[in-house]
């Protein structure tokens, strides 16, 4: 399979180290000059960007966390004036306020290039018809994927919010050959296909690009076997913002990180200290070329391991193994990240008062993942009219679904008990994953 940009993807390792140092230093200089948040934090630590003389010195710089993105809502972390920003993205974030990120024209070109290189690595070309099916919470990625697919000349069916049955219809009728989706949505597709008595051989689909969720070897194997396709895993972050900053190549031995644009570090999730290559820890990313929205040492919460040695595919971009468990309390539903405190705050805002008790579950029904919220009914919530309770349930459910970008079901309960391990605050539990539970 060919390589989209061999000059960058196969760059000599010494040249790569030099390139990363140069780009890191200019990123730090720009962030220091143009973003008060970073300047203040550097100054508090007594750090001048000129002190960063090697990639190893980066660990003297404080981390950027998701909370900082919310605190600087909407434009506090932008490093260019708004008139230079040509696209503004909103992701639902993990707090009450969404995460806002911006792109300059150059940033868009970088993302287009990165998406193009991931498609090329998966063998997608101008002779493919590529369909993008992601949940609304990942609509940012849909646009970047569309741009990248257009760059390689593929025919694109852009992200359109349609029910799975309609997506399946497009897949069949439009002769889609490559599909970008999440592993859970792909699994749902597969089951819908069989339920509709459609033979996978009747589809033109040959490439399944899986984004948004850590890979599960069993699910990948099942998808490949049942749908007669090849699957390719992509890693992305909605905050950075972009869909495919690491991708699988034909060797299927880890995901190549686009190190010419991002500097990966692996740190101990508890101590924050850098870990040696090969050890499992939290992935921390620093943007190297982003103009509008640089992120410096951003804690992703994803567990990874950087793999040693070069890949036989010829790319010198380092590879990482992406592990399913996270290092934080965020949970992922159909590629969308959420935190139980965020859901609690959204419910409180919708009700006008804090709920007495609630529990959150990720469930799967009809092969479709969704969030189920249990709310304890007390005097404030209770109404003796069923219709009133239904109305409240619908209002809460649709409001949460809109904010989070995933399907939500509300259940009222007379009493809610917490398993001791699941409880994390006065009135709510962490999000419990019951997808693989028999109940």
């Amino acid at each position: 399979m060919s390589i989209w940009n061999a000059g960058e993807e196969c760059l000599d390792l010494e040249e790569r180290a030099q390139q990363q140092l140069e780009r890191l230093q200019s990123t730090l200089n720009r962030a220091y000059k143009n973003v008060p948040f970073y300047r203040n934090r550097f100054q508090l630590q007594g750090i001048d960007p000129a002190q960063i003389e090697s990639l190893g010195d980066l660990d003297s710089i404080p981390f950027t966390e998701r909370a900082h993105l919310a605190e600087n809502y909407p434009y506090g972390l932008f490093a260019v004036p708004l008139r230079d920003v040509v696209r503004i993205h909103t992701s639902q974030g993990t707090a009450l306020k969404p995460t806002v990120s911006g792109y300059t024209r150059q940033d868009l070109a970088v993302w287009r290039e990165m998406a193009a290189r991931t498609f090329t690595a998966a063998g997608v070309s101008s002779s493919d018809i590529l369909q993008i099916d992601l949940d609304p919470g990942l609509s940012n990625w849909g646009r970047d994927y569309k741009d990248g697919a257009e760059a390689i000349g593929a025919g694109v069916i852009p992200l359109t919010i349609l029910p799975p049955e309609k997506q399946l219809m497009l897949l069949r009728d439009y002769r889609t050959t490559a599909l970008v989706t999440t592993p859970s949505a792909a699994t749902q597709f597969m089951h819908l296909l069989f339920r509709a008595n459609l033979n996978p051989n009747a589809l033109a689909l040959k490439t399944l690009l899986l984004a948004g969720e850590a890979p599960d070897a069993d699910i990948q194997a099942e998808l490949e076997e049942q749908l007669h396709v090849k699957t390719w895993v992509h890693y992305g972050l909605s905050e950075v913002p972009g869909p495919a900053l690491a991708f699988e190549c034909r060797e299927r031995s880890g995901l190549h990180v686009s190190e010419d644009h991002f500097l990966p570090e692996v740190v101990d999730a508890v101590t924050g200290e850098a870990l040696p290559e090969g050890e499992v820890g939290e992935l921390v990313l620093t943007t190297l070329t982003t103009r509008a929205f640089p992120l410096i040492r951003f804690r992703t919460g994803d567990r990874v391991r950087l793999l040693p040695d070069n890949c036989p595919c010829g790319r010198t971009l380092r590879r990482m193994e992406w592990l399913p468990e996270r290092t934080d309390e965020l949970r992922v539903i159909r590629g969308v990240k959420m935190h139980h405190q965020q859901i609690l705050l959204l419910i409180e805002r919708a009700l006008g008062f804090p709920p007495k008790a609630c529990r959150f579950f990720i469930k799967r029904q009809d092969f479709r993942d969704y969030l189920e919220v249990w709310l304890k009914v007390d005097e404030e919530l209770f109404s003796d009219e069923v219709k009133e309770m239904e109305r409240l349930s619908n209002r809460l459910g649709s409001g949460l679904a809109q904010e989070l970008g995933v399907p939500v079901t509300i259940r009222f309960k007379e009493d809610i008990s917490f398993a001791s391990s699941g409880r994390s605050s006065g009135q709510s539990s962490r999000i419990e994953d019951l997808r693989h539970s028999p109940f």
Partner: protein
Amino acid sequence: MLRIRNLKCYYGRIRAINGVSLSVRPKELIALIGANGAGKSTMLQTIAGLLPHWEGEIQLEKESLQGLKPPGIVKRGISLVPEGRMLFPPMSVLDNLKLGAYLRYRRREHSQIAEDLEMVLDLFPVLRERAKQPAGTLSGGEQQMVAIGRALMARPRLLLLDEPSMGLAPFLVRTILNILVQLREQGMTILLVEQNARAALQIADRGYVLENGRIVLDGPAADLLADQDVKRAYLGKDYREFNEGRA
């Protein structure tokens, strides 16, 4: 070919360059742009060995230039075309050109020097016509050609040029820059410092933006040409906003 890491240069106690990392790959034409006083010329003079007080790493083909004086650096294959040409006005064009090969005469490379002189005169035909004329009597553009020709007479692997367009009429600027493109096409590696940012970026492969002794932007030259910050600061828009920051 040229690899610089964490360069810090001093004039007395004043730090003019503050932690610059920069690289030039073989056969690349790199533009280093920035405002007056940003440190562009300081960078070139340091690489050429003219400024002794610096820290960091400068490597040519993975060999350090630390401790080398200008003749040693010329021997390694780096030639500087200085700002303001710095010709010897009373001397003839030919003698000015031959001075560029001064170190090679000591190595008795006479026949190769003669070949190179022919190559330079082919590159700048007007200099052949004025070969015996005192260099000081030439026009600005012609003097710049002599300065470039003199640098080429050292047979450099890396050519450094400091503001070659300075003081030249627009059509002469184009002539000089076209010659740089021609040299790059012939395989020369070039690091070009220019205040005429647009002209430099139009012919360069990549560029670096230097500001107060620090690199604040780098990337493919076409990207920098399209960058709004670069446009404001160096291509004629809102200089003040860029320079004073936004915070």
